[in-house]
């Protein structure tokens, strides 16, 4: 069983929703990332999503754009990100790590070379934001060979015909984009979200993660009632800007936010137990 499948089996068995913090690798500086990953796990993260910085992050809002710029100012490359995952794996063999990024750096490295290096580093899933299933055969093929799950997005605008297509290609979990917009946008309607997730569940057994627009513990708790995983990105990355010259304080603030979200999510599920989702 893959690390991702194993982790979701555990969270499902214990009636919890998984908490998945996102951070951009190399932000605010490359030497912060591995320690930060361990912090986030200690604070209650079940999976980690690690952003691969890209010069033109078209699907991201200003918070993650700036994170990419900060990371790239240090010259962080895809190979550097894989080295960070490998370093993280020296002390943590349990927590799944999903890379999230854009296609061009992967193409530049070569899909096959990338897949092998990612497998060796201990990457569990890869989400390429600008690679829809229609164009993904080559990459999913080489990822499958090294046991890495291709993670795909489903959006509020995804038609039912496309939904079948996406769920057929997806492995690991489905990443549901909770709103129309880029990362870090506002407004999320929990009632609408619940209805939408039910229609996806009719087509797939895969766990459903929800991200984009989860900014605080209260929203995280609402989403935890209906989703298998809650992905939190901009709310964490934004904290870097609060502590521009103090990475330690950023790490502490990020951990505190994750801890707060963890508690709120677990309380929300407890209050509802044993009702199934």
């Amino acid at each position: 069983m893959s690390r991702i499948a194993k982790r979701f089996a555990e969270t499902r068995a214990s009636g919890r929703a998984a908490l998945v913090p996102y951070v951009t690798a190399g932000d605010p500086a490359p030497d912060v990332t591995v320690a930060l990953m361990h912090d986030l796990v200690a604070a209650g993260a079940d999976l980690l999503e690690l952003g691969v910085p890209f010069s033109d992050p078209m699907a991201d809002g200003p918070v993650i754009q700036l994170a990419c710029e900060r990371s790239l100012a240090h010259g962080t490359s895809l190979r550097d990100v894989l080295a960070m995952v490998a370093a993280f794996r020296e002390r943590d063999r349990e927590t799944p790590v999903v890379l999230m990024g854009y296609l061009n750096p992967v193409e530049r490295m070569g899909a096959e070379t990338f897949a092998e290096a990612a497998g060796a580093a201990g990457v569990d899933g890869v989400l390429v934001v600008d690679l829809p299933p229609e164009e993904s055969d080559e990459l999913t093929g080489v990822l499958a060979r090294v046991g890495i799950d291709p993670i795909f997005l489903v959006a509020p605008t995804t038609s039912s015909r496309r939904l079948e297509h996406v769920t057929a290609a997806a492995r690991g979990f489905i990443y549901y984009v909770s709103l129309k917009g880029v990362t870090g946008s506002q407004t999320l309607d929990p009632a609408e979200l619940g209805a939408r997730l039910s229609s996806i569940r009719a087509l797939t057994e895969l766990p459903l993660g929800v991200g984009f627009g989860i900014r605080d513990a209260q929203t995280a708790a609402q989403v935890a009632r209906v989703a298998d995983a809650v992905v939190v990105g901009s709310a964490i990355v934004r904290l870097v800007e609060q502590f521009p010259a103090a990475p330690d304080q950023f790490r502490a603030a990020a951990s505190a936010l994750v801890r707060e979200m963890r508690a709120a999510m677990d309380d929300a599920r407890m209050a509802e137990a044993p009702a199934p989702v």
Partner: protein
Amino acid sequence: MKQAVDWAAFPDVRGHFGPYGGRFVAETLMGALDELQGVYEKYMKDPEFLAELDADLQNFVGRPSPLYHAERLSRELGGAQVYLKREDLNHTGAHKVNNTIGQALLAKRLGKTRIIAETGAGQHGVATATVAARLGLECVVFMGAEDIQRQSPNVYRMRLLGADVVAVKSGSRTLKDALNEAMRDWVANVDDTFYIIGTVAGPHPYPAMVRDFQSVIGREARAQHLEMTGRLPDALVACVGGGSNAIGLFHPFLADESVAMIGVEAGGEGVGTGRHSAPLCAGRPGVLHGNRTYLMEDDNGQIIETHSISAGLDYPGVGPEHSWLKDIGRVSYVSVTDDMALRAFHRMTRTEGIIPALETSHAVAHVLDLAPRMRTDQSVIINLSGRGDKDLNTIARLEGIEL
């Protein structure tokens, strides 16, 4: 390239020109692109739509644009006869409006009430603001903060036309960043918003759709040249930023094997210096802005900053069809430096009384070199893609003059 190619078969249904093109966007936009492809395919076969488009091109844009024999320049160069396809005479002063008219009519058919666009030189922004004003649609134009400085007359024109011009301060603050920002806006407002892309880049169906709207240039030029000379031209020359004016001229001639085609990229300070905007001449294939194409990147696959005196060519990618035409050898691509373009700007202005845009001046510069190497009974058509009024501040500043 000797075997016959069925040019009409490209792109394929998923938008591929050989290995290039396609649709590389986040899932949120896939539905909107399917919808756009649907209406585009439907209306390009709809006689009523095509009649409305033709009428607008004639009465609002002023088409057909003349094919002008630049006799004095031809004489001075002492080689091929130089013809200018006068897209600078279109309403709003460039070829860009051919495309915005078409896309705005589609937006209307789709019932969208809000138009967004990216712009570099501001020509596409002006052409978009113009059609939006005419149709009573809300219009937001994204423009790199640096380009807003370089092209201030066009910024004012857009604002006069009622457009909201948004300064994009991310990344290199030029055209590519404006495109990123327009995409982000589109993702968030996809229900009521139509994104009018200004060149043959972006995800499918944009490269094919914009090409089809711009192909009026080549259809007219082909008929006009036949009418004026009784034969086809020997060469076509156009500048290439994203590549819309070039493909618009080239496409109707692709099957005419005797016609050579040359796309001219912005060589900036020289392709050897790294400070240029010439992905076809000096880049490599990758994925940017929704399609696979030649682009300018570093060893880690990050998009690198481009340089050109002309904001409209300052783009690290290029339309995917050009990448394919390059690989199969049907079109050749060369580059021209800032200095060469400037000299050509002055030469055209003084010799023919036509002030070309700085973008266009790159194509002119190549012909200054090419025509003397051709025979006097041969001919070359330059796509005179736009007029240079918008560039007067840039030129004056280079000459130390405050306007």
